[in-house]
C-alpha cells in the first residue's frame, strides 16, 4: 500500500516537471497546484493515516485547510481588486 502511494507520488513529481515545459498560460499554475494537491492529499490520507483517524482529527485537518483558504482569499480579494487604482499586476 505504502509503496503504491510512493510510486504515485514519484510519477506525480515527474508529471509536474513535464507539465511545466508545456505552455498553458494561466493554467500552468492551476495544473501545478492541482497535481501538488493530489500528492498532498495522498500524503495526508495514507502516510499521515488520516483515513484511519478519528472524526476529531479529520475536523482539525479540514479546519486548517479552511482557515488557510480564508487567509488566501481575503488577502487576495483586497490585492486583486486594487488594479483599477494602482499599477499592481502590471
Amino acid at each position, binding site marked *: 500500500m*505504502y*509503496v503504491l*502511494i*510512493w510510486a504515485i*507520488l*514519484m510519477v506525480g*513529481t515527474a508529471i*509536474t*516537471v513535464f507539465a*511545466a*515545459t*508545456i*505552455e498553458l498560460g494561466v493554467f*500552468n*499554475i492551476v495544473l*501545478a*497546484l492541482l*497535481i*501538488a494537491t493530489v*500528492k*498532498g492529499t495522498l*500524503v*495526508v490520507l*495514507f*502516510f*499521515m*493515516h488520516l483515513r484511519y*483517524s*478519528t472524526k*476529531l*482529527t479529520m475536523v*482539525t*485537518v479540514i*479546519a*486548517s*485547510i479552511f*482557515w*488557510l483558504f480564508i*487567509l*488566501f482569499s481575503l*488577502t*487576495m480579494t483586497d*490585492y*486583486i481588486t486594487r488594479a483599477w487604482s494602482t499599477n*499592481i*499586476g502590471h
Partner: protein
Amino acid sequence: MATSEIQVAERALQHHFADMDQQKETSTFGMWMFLLTEIMFFGGLFCAYLVYRASYYHAFVEGSQKMNIWLGGTNTAVLICSSLTMALGVRAAQMAKPKLMIVLLLITILFGFGFLGIKAVEYHEHWVNHEFPGPNFHFETGDPAHPPTDPVHTEIYFSLYWAMTGLHALHMIIGVGLVAWIVIVGARGAFTPEYYNPVENVGLYWHFVDLVWIYLFPLLYLISKKHGG
C-alpha cells in the same frame, strides 16, 4: 501477555488517561493541532508569495529561471522516498519489529541528510551568483540579449525563496534530530505495539515537512516553461 510486556504497558499509560486508546487519540489530536499552527505559519509565507507573484509576475519568472530544476526535482524524489521509509518505520513499530523500525528510520535520516546536502549545493550556487537579497544582491539573466526587466522585484522573489526554503530546511534539520531521538529511544526498547505514540507523531511531523516541499517545488522552481540548463 508476558509479565514484562504488562509492565511496559503500565509504565506507558499516563495516569490521566482512561486507557491506551484514549491516550493515543489524544496524542495524535495534539500533534495535528500543532501541525495546524505550522500550516498557518507557512501559510503566511505562501500568502506573501501569492501577493507578490500576482504583482510582479515577470520578475518572478526571471528569478525562477535561475533555479536548478534537476537538483530541485531530485530533492523532491529524495523527500518522497524518505516519507516512504518513515511510513514503513512507523508500521514496523506498530508490528513490534523494533530492529526493522531502527533500520528504516536510519535510512530516513540518510535521505534527510541527502536532501540537506543537495540544498546546500543549491544555496552555494545562489550565494556565489549574488542571488541573496541584501546590499550585495546582483541579478543577471545570463543572456546579454535579454537583460533583467525588473531586478528590484526579482529580489523579492529571492527573499521569499530563501525564507521559504530556509524555514523548510530548518524543519528538516529538526526532523532529522527527532528521528535520531526515536532511533536512540527505540534501541532501548521504549516502544511496543500498544505504545508508539512518539514514533507516530515524529512520522506526522516528517510527512508534514514533505507536504510543504510538495507545494514549494512547483511554486518556486516551475513558474515558467523556459528552464534552460
